[in-house]
């Protein structure tokens, strides 16, 4: 498996990198992209990527600004727009996608927050355009007692781009990371992202994601609660429309006693879009007193919309509290009628209900600037967005 675009990118790497990464490249060539025969990829078909061709990275035509009062780092088609290219190692390569990323990546965020320090909030903006291929690899380390807020924001044009991304995070003892994601790469984009997050003793992860869809969007969000007292909130909204595809796989691993996870996902699936949600929670034998909750609710907004939702619980400890629930339905007709009986027209009422449904998750974003940005981006996706301008 080494279609022209990937091979060419590999050949263009400096000799030293090719030597250092020969293993990863070999792994990608051997494995290729995951196939639908694998259970984890049953509903997301990557076979079109084998022969896809992508353009050389060029400058981007997308105009976008970063959040005011936030630090920013911008990558345009994988090219850093500010600061020094980072030198790094790329240890994580456990499937074809992460192997490809490990072989070809040239840059990415490297954030280290020293003990007891509070980092300025950071807006990481990745602009993908002109059918380019990018492979960023980010690393975030929070030392003990530190705090950081990071928004990873991907935007694209209408071209068929490919972005692979890997984010490795270590949250040290008693540290706290607020991690936000906006996936808005455009209708034709392919975005394969892996988050691998380790949460240490008494540390906190607060994740909220907003996935707006693309030709193929997949996020593998793996959280390890590896020491006692570790806590994770893992929340998200997915709102694909048109004929886009969004696949979210979360895996929360309770490995130590007294670990807690809270997970709330909401989906709005419109038109002929396809959403996949797989929420796996594993409670290992050592993880007594685990407290875990997972809730998924989604709305199918048209007859052609489709969702495959699956909660998976694996519990090996005997003194735990685990709750989960998944619902899927249509808009509440009674609520629609109630709003109309007070004077709102049916389109406005409908859009208001959709926005409110998703907003219950976005409301969990503590950083106000980022929350407003996420609300705006969601509102832009729903028709008649002016109706709820005051709401946000």
């Amino acid at each position, binding site marked *: 498996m080494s279609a022209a675009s990937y091979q060419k990118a590999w050949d263009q790497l400096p000799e030293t990198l090719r030597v250092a990464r020969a293993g990863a490249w070999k792994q990608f060539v051997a494995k290729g992209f995951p196939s639908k025969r694998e259970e984890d990829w049953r509903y997301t078909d990557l076979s079109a990527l084998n022969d896809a061709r992508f353009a050389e990275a060029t400058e981007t035509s997308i105009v976008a600004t970063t959040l005011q009062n936030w630090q920013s780092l911008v990558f345009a088609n994988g090219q850093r727009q500010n600061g020094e290219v980072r030198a790094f190692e790329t240890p994580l390569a456990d499937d074809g996608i992460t192997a490809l990323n490990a072989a070809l990546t040239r840059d990415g965020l490297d954030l280290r927050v020293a003990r007891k320090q509070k980092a300025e909030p950071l807006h990481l903006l990745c602009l993908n355009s002109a059918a380019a291929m990018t492979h960023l690899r980010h690393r975030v380390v929070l030392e003990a007692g530190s705090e950081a807020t990071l928004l990873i924001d991907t935007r694209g044009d209408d071209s068929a781009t490919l972005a692979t991304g890997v984010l490795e995070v270590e949250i040290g003892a008693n540290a706290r990371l607020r991690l936000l994601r906006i996936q808005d790469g455009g209708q034709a984009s392919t975005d394969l992202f892996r988050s691998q997050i380790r949460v240490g003793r008494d540390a906190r992860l607060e994740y909220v994601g907003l996935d707006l869809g693309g030709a193929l969007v997949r996020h593998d969000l793996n959280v390890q609660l590896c020491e006692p007292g570790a806590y994770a909130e893992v929340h998200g909204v997915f709102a694909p429309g048109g004929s886009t595809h969004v696949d979210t796989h979360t895996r929360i691993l309770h490995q130590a006693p007294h670990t807690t996870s809270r997970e709330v996902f909401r989906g709005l699936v419109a038109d002929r879009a396809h959403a996949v949600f797989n929420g796996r929670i594993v409670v290992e034998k050592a993880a007594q007193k685990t407290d875990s909750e997972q809730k998924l609710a989604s709305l199918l907004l048209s007859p052609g919309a489709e969702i495959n939702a699956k909660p998976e619980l694996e519990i090996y400890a005997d003194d735990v509290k685990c709750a989960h629930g998944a619902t899927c339905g249509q808009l509440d007709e009674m609520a629609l009628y109630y709003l109309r*009986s007070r004077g709102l*027209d049916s389109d406005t009422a409908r859009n208001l209900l959709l926005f409110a449904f998703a907003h219950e998750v976005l409301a969990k974003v503590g950083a106000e600037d980022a929350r407003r940005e996420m609300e705006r981006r969601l509102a832009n996706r729903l028709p008649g967005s002016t109706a709820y301008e005051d709401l946000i």
Partner: protein
Amino acid sequence: MLTIENLHARVGDKEILKGLSLTVKPGEVHAIMGPNGAGKSTLGHLLAGREGYECTQGSVSFEGRDLLALETEERAAAGIFLGFQYPVEIPGVSNMYFLKAAMNAQRKRRGEPEIEATDFLAFVRMQIKKVGIEPAMLQRGVNEGFSGGEKKRNEILQMLVLQPKLMVLDETDSGLDIDALKMVSDGINAMRSPERSVILVTHYQRLLDYVKPDIVHVLARGRIVKSGGPELALELEERGYGWLEAA
């Protein structure tokens, strides 16, 4: 103001209203009482324009317009207000936003300018005192986590804010304690004027001690079987509906 003539209506395959006639003049308060399943709530939803409630015969005219030809939201803008028996919870939409959106949607449809945000806030703050709703509740989702009594008071608040011409209050008194009943009644009385009319749908005579009706009707088997003055309500409380249903 409202003229209903020989109204037949069905919900799904079931015919519920079977020849109901009712005339409400400006300034009047009508009470509609009757046994369960008589069609009281159906009448309310039919006037408000709920989908699936279908008129098969007869007519409803509101201020000279064919009410049944209007969309639900057009009826609201024209001045119809239904106080729901079971108000709907809408998480994620705050009461304050809802009130403002509803008011401005109605004004826009009537060709009136939108209300200034600060004027509106002051106006709403004045109204909530009348129904005993805490200001903090305005920031909560519509009816979200409200008790039964709070939901009913919230209906009255919406009515006070939207200032409709015809108020149809479907069992707004059910499940209220005496203090809440007084607040709800005060709210209704505050709205009474020579231009506005009220239809109170109720099971209990108790509400009518506080809101004095001009006319009391008994709705049974899909139509009005008896009408009279306020004394009819007392008689119904004494004797029940059996003597009327048998008639």
